[in-house]
């Protein structure tokens, strides 16, 4: 059918969507990695624990 015919614009839009998808996925992984590093560092303290100490 004509509507299913692949057009150059479909490839371009697909490239844009995939690019944005990969960037968002990478951002999620990065935030997760950053969180792991922060919470496992020696200087990390939970806010409540800090309050109790005071």
């Amino acid at each position, binding site marked *: 059918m004509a509507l299913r015919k692949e057009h150059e614009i479909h490839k371009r839009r697909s*490239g844009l969507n995939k690019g944005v998808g990969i960037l968002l996925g990478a951002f999620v992984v990065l935030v997760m990695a950053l969180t792991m590093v922060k919470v496992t560092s020696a200087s990390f303290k939970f806010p409540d624990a800090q309050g109790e100490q005071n």
Partner: protein
Amino acid sequence: MSDASINASRAYEDEASFGDYFALLKPRVMSLVVFTALVGLLAAPVGVHPVIGFCAILFIAIGGGASGALNMWWDADIDKVMKRTRGRPIPAGKVEPGEALALGLALSGLSVIMLALAANVFAGAFLAFTIFFYVVVYTMWLKRATPQNIVIGGAAGAFPPVIGWIAATGTMSVEPWLMFLLTFMWTPPHFWALALFMRSDYDDAGVPMLTVTHGRRATRVHILVYTALLAVLAVGTAFSGIGGPLYLAAALVMNALFLHGAWKITRRDEDDSEADNFKVERSFFKLSLLYLFLHFGAILAEALLKPYGLGGW
């Protein structure tokens, strides 16, 4: 084919690809930002966790890219006139100005907040100030108002090593400001050489570059004066906490070459330049790229050799 389908087909041809949005971030400028910020981060006397260091450099780069998008949004009218910039996504009709504005603002907010969370609030605040300086002070105000646009505006491109240093240490000291001054003093001769061989571009766009307001002779003299001042600063940096014998050797060689290039530019007149299609000016411009790369590369090498007792004095 009906008129409607022809118009629709043309609209599709102009639809932006992923690469067009990426081009809004000025990838070549971003690579300079990444490199100098990385040197600032690694030259700092405090070790940084690799993930935090990676995030800091990434968000500094995104902040630099965001200010590039905001610059393209504001300057779309003059980008359309200049040969060097008319292929950019907005003047080429690929991206709407509003899209560039939205992307620039969104990435500015994201980069500042994420840098503050990943490294420290001081680094995030300094990145915010850098974006403000480049977009508001340079792009919106100075660029079209004064021939000193490149001199003062060059500060925006010189801040990344300072941000990298602050991301690592959380504090400020003299060494990152030496790196700042190196890029700050390097920017005018670099851009004025470009303005000499991109002859009518800035004139056509009405941007008051030194070549337009004070003439080409004065620009050649300015290049020599700034290159001489830069040489003093660059060689003097060798004796600071970020310098060392390797840096001193690189600085002596590169500044001798750079001064020689500036001297040749000053001695030429317009007839000489037009006869060989600005060969000396073009090679000076290329040399300026190598100049900055080698200076920062030497600072990086000194920092990386320090743990083995080799870097520094």
